[in-house]
């Protein structure tokens, strides 16, 4: 782009082109983060389900803590790798919402050390995270994420109806509904908007 004076039409064209460039939905580039959390969640919960079924040893539940132990460093790595160069208002709001959800989720998990019967942890976690997914979807106005979030909120209550190992199986299903499927859809939408 060279430095010269413009006609009014050229000015208008530059303004519209540049605004369009930034509207290529920077916020929709987060698919890989959904996938990271989704697959870690799925594999850990399925592992816990099968190990509990085989051994019946409830100390296996400690494995839940491997989700944040793998998820957070992985997310930090992905965020550094996918440096976006620009921050939008929506992107910052979504980031902050997930920071709050992350802190609440950590506190809820830690409370389990004090009293593991205080509240149904799988239900609470599922409801909390699905709420985050639905809010994120509404902010970026992306239907698959909105649907996944609200579907997840509704299905969270199924955990209350079920008991024992079935709860864990449903919990692992959430990873697919609210993180893995939306993550793949987000990635494909992001690739399409980059090509356009």
């Amino acid at each position, binding site marked *: *782009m*060279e*430095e*010269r*004076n*413009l006609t*009014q039409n*050229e*000015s*208008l064209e*530059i*303004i519209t*082109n*540049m*605004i369009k*460039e*930034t*509207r290529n939905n*920077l916020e929709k580039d987060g698919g890989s983060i959904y996938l990271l959390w989704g697959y870690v969640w799925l594999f850990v919960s399925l592992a816990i389900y099968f190990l509990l079924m085989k051994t019946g040893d409830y100390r296996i539940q400690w494995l839940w803590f491997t989700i944040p132990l793998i998820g957070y460093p992985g997310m930090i790595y992905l965020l*550094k790798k996918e*440096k*976006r*160069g*620009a*921050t*939008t*208002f929506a992107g*910052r709001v979504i980031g902050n919402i997930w920071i709050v959800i992350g802190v609440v989720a950590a506190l809820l998990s830690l409370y389990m050390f004090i009293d593991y019967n205080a509240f149904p942890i799988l239900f609470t976690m599922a409801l909390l995270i699905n709420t985050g997914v639905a809010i994120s979807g509404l902010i970026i106005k992306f239907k698959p994420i909105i649907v996944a979030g609200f579907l997840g909120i509704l299905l969270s209550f199924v955990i209350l109806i079920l008991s024992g190992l079935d709860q864990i199986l449903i919990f692992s299903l959430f990873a697919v509904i609210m993180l893995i499927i939306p993550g793949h859809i987000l990635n494909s939408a992001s690739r399409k908007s980059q090509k356009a």
Partner: protein
Amino acid sequence: MFKDLDPLLHSQLRLAVISILISVEEADFVYLREKTGSTGGNLSVQLEKLSEAGYIEIEKGFSGKRPRTLCHITEIGRNAFEQYVEALKSYFNTSA
């Protein structure tokens, strides 16, 4: 009646930079260079001019070990852009 167009914004690269910064909260030097298709040297000069006029703020820092220049639009810049668009409209309204 044609309104005067702000000479600081009535230039290809500076207008492109302000148009980007009006739509995002902040953008770094590399992002601006890629989106505007400009050379680094030219972009540096134009950013400096916009900064001297108070239209944008430039923060120089580090991202890990790499230097990173972040830019964001100021209230003065936002007002100047809005006035520029208003002035631009006057040309189209008259010719319509």
